[in-house]
């Protein structure tokens, strides 16, 4: 039986230290943002190039994207949590759980929006990209706040600004809406995603075990 001679300050130090170490687990690995961001970015650019070249089946890329997105979403929901993979060894935090559920809600909302637009034929003007950017911004802002990742929150503002630009000038923008969409995705998803990946890699180094308990 150990006889601990803990002082009040020792106890406070241990509590603070351990709560701090537990918080280290609430970190975004960035992989999900990078994959999702590049998928959206490439689809937008390919669609734009096909319109400029007046290629047949200009919008076929979105069908391919839709299938790829569905596979990605189902895989990330049931096989691997791309957006909040906790570091090894395994631990479940309340933040991870909440954010995972919010991610599911995001993808369902996205699916309903895209399907609704497609089935109703309301996607003729390209203004629906503005609604998509609004939804991305919503997700980024909450996710960024939960993981204390300010760059993702900044990405949300970029996406909301992009949405506003599309709503105000969608007629003038025409096919350039795709470039606005691609730029917002690059600034909102891809760049923060790569930075998060780097941050996650650094945080995943072995911890300092100098305080033996």
């Amino acid at each position, binding site marked *: 039986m*150990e006889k*601990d001679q*803990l002082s*009040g*300050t*020792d*106890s*406070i130090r*241990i*509590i603070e*230290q*351990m*709560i701090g*170490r*537990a*918080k280290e*687990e609430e970190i975004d690995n960035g992989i999900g943002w990078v994959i999702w961001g590049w998928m959206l970015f490439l689809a937008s650019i390919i669609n734009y190039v096909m319109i400029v070249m007046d290629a047949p089946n200009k919008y076929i890329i979105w069908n391919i994207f839709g299938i790829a997105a569905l596979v990605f979403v189902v895989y990330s929901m049931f096989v691997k949590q791309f957006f909040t993979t906790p570091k090894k*060894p*395994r*631990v*479940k*935090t*309340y933040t991870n*759980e909440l954010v995972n559920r919010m991610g599911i809600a995001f993808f369902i909302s996205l699916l309903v929006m895209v399907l609704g637009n497609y089935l109703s034929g309301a996607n003729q003007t390209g203004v629906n990209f503005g609604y998509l950017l609004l939804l991305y911004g919503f997700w980024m802002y909450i996710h960024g706040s939960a993981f204390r990742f300010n760059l993702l929150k900044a990405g949300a503002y970029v996406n909301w600004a992009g949405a506003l630009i599309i709503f105000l000038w969608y007629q003038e923008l025409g096919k350039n809406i795709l470039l606005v969409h691609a730029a917002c995705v690059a600034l909102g998803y891809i760049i923060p995603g790569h930075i998060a990946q780097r941050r996650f890699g650094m945080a995943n180094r072995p*911890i300092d*075990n*100098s*305080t*033996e*308990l």
Partner: protein
Amino acid sequence: MSEFKDLDPILHSQLRLAVISLLVSVKEAEFTFLREKTSSTAGNLSVQLQKLKEAGYIEITKQFKDNYPQTMCRITKNGIRAFEEYVKNLSEYLNLGK
């Protein structure tokens, strides 16, 4: 003044307090996570976890994942209450000491 008279003896131990402080911050954690974060040995950690379990402060579930045994720990409602009480008494003690 009698030091720490009111502090829960189960929690007033370095390793057990560390474990409870970790578990109060997460939903559940694997044994290896606790061992890594507390920098403790497996043997000592097992003993202290057992004491916390016997006090009703944590739940321990053993399962297999990918053919490897996995021990998961989770704080109970009693454990949360005891931790809150411990922190309250500790802050009272620290205020008295000033």
